[in-house]
């Protein structure tokens, strides 16, 4: 079945450094969509980004990701981490009909 892999459980960065959170996936569906959800403490998880077409970059709130079907990846990036970016980040996979399946999540901790 479908699966999403987020290898890093915890990423600790100093403010101002670039962010890269890894996400790879496996699916039998050719029309799969990838998502990044962010979960701040004491809030609801919410959508941060969703994939567009193959090799096209999508951006939102300073974060960006590019779907690469050739490598089954959808890594999340940001040029400069801010303290307020500290949160849990989930990569998720869905096709048009099935509910999204989530990766294990990566906790991003940004230090001054």
């Amino acid at each position: 079945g479908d699966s999403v892999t987020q290898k890093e459980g915890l990423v600790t960065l100093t403010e101002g450094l670039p962010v890269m959170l890894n996400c790879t996936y496996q699916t039998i569906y050719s029309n799969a969509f990838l998502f990044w959800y962010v979960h701040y403490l004491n809030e609801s998880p919410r959508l941060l980004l969703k994939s567009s077409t193959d090799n096209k970059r999508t951006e939102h709130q300073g974060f960006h990701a590019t779907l690469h079907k050739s490598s089954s990846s959808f890594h999340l990036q940001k040029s400069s981490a801010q303290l307020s970016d500290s949160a849990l980040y989930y990569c998720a996979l869905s096709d048009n009909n099935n509910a999204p399946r989530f990766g294990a999540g990566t906790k991003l901790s940004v230090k001054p």
Partner: protein
Amino acid sequence: GPKVLQIPSHQIIDMGQMVTLNCDPVSNHLYFYWYKQILGQQMEFLVNFYNGKVMEKSKLFKDQFSVERPDGSYFTLKIQPTALEDSAVYFCASSPDRGPITLYFGAGTRLSVL
């Protein structure tokens, strides 16, 4: 943005009892979901509900689980009877449509089965 409300935020019950978790989805959304997250583990899909029916469920959606949304009121997850391994945070989500499915989450209900 659109809000999904979950009531209560925390529920403590004794093993074997019945529990109902309530979710007030975004008003014009048609698709409803429950996810389960055991502490320190990933968020796992339980069930997808549309037009009064279960559309999709995972192997975690045991026979003791049921969902309904009577007359457009709360979307509920009922567990009867509960077991110790049901202790987790249960997230409700809704989406307006499919293709691709964008989920709007509630803040979760923490269920503690003693």
